[in-house]
């Protein structure tokens, strides 16, 4: 397999040459996935914590539901978002299909259940330690959710990173709703799919190597920030 050697060489060459097309695609990938994860966290964190704290009929069903949605296939999310935003669909008038916005929405839909389900489990495991004390202090359900979320913030970063991993890696949703349009909606994963279909396996693999490197950098940065924040918090 000479493709592997060629791929590493190609990956290095692309990065070293500051290929403008490549950096445009990387920037768009990061922008779409980071924004999608930001939205998903804004919804998923409180949703998961509420699900952990609240007691209501059908709660068990809701927990199973969100856990199952973690396995939502990206291509199905893409198809549903396409059908919603297609000109023939209910939200077609917005003209959002084949835009970056549609891609962000699709990934947010994909990632929200992952963050919600992981948050629910984390908070539920923490809850017994806090519950009595918070009740004595007279904390209402809202205060309880916020306190638990705040105290679990470092662990919850992993839930958010899991969501980011899913978003940056998926191709099925963004290729349908974004259309893989050059200079408009092409991201790393759709570019990899395209180069594979052109039979340029070395270039495809080179892009894959760069994508993995980006995921490493993002995860490293977040973990570094977390450790710094923790140290400063205890200091």
């Amino acid at each position, binding site marked *: 397999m000479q493709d592997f050697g060629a791929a590493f060489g190609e990956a290095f060459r692309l990065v070293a040459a500051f290929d403008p097309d490549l950096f445009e695609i990387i*920037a*768009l990938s990061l*922008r779409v996935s*980071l*924004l999608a994860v*930001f939205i998903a966290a804004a919804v998923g964190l409180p949703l998961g914590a509420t699900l952990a704290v609240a007691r209501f009929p059908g709660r068990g069903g809701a927990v199973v539901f969100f856990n199952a949605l973690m396995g939502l296939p990206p291509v199905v999310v893409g198809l549903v978002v396409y059908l919603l935003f*297609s*000109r*023939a*669909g209910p939200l*077609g008038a917005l*003209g959002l*299909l*084949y*835009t*970056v916005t549609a891609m962000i929405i699709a990934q947010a839909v994909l990632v929200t259940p992952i963050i919600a389900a992981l948050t629910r489990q984390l908070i539920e495991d923490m809850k017994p330690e806090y519950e009595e004390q918070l009740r004595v202090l007279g904390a209402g359900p809202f205060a309880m959710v916020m*306190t638990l979320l*705040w*105290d679990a*913030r470092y662990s919850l970063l992993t839930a958010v990173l899991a969501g980011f991993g899913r978003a940056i890696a998926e191709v099925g949703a963004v290729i349908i709703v974004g*259309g*893989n*349009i*050059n*200079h*408009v909606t092409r991201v790393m994963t759709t570019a990899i799919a*395209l180069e*594979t*279909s*052109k*039979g*340029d*396996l070395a270039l495809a693999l080179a892009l894959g190597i760069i994508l993995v490197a980006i995921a490493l950098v993002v995860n490293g940065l977040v973990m570094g*920030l977390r450790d*710094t*924040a923790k140290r*400063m*918090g205890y200091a």
Partner: protein
Amino acid sequence: MIRIRKPLLTGLVAALVIFASTATTTTVSWAAEKFIVLQSTTSTANSGLYDHLLPIFTKKTGIEVRVVAVGTGQALKNAANGDGDVLLVHAKPAEEKFVADGFGVERFDVMYNDFVFVGPPSDPAGIAGTKDAVAALKKIAAAKAPFASRGDNSGTHKKERALWKAAGIDPTQQSGAWYRETGSGMGATLNAAVGMNAYAMTDRGTWISFKNRGDFTITVQGDKDLFNQYGVILVNPKRHPHVKVAEGQAFIDWVLSQEGQGAIRSYKLGGQQLFFPNAKGGPGNM
């Protein structure tokens, strides 16, 4: 529960928002330009034709062309949903039905190339160097030689099925045995064919530009049954009022004009011409 280090989190969020908004402004500059969405096929995009053609058109008119490259079946469906302004595909009967059903305004011939069969050097069906496509399919079936089909209702797949029908064979009964439906695009199907030493039918443009050919070569070519005609259609604004009629028509007029046809003719890869313009009586020529 001690609220410390909130600034850090706030800073992170702020950084993200700033990143997002600066990134958004760059897109707005894109969106502010005039553009059309062209629903088209993988063969035209993957062969590099659009990379050659579209910048010439954009430079002349200021209209950006956003290409969604999918199989002809999906392109027709997307365009019928109004998710595009212009359709450029290669399945004449399906295109004519698209217009007859009121989804498109009018269909024009743009260009052609041809389909070829490619296969491994071992040539288990003994068809290398022959010309008759239908006869070759009969031999492939008789030899039970592996054949990789698109299986995705694309223009190439429609053509392939028509040829099987002409051969009087229903290969789908052998699906999973020697007849293998990949259900993917042309490139993915060629990757699969090379991987499992199977014959495949592809348009010549994709084959010439395809990089993972292994030791595969063209086995069958030159049959008039393997003719591959591309057509262009404006999506009907009566059905979808948001269609950008002026810009879409400008693209169609240009691609059918002498200049557009000349640009198609001048696109060569490895010294070979990939597409042959054959517009006749298009509005651009009147």
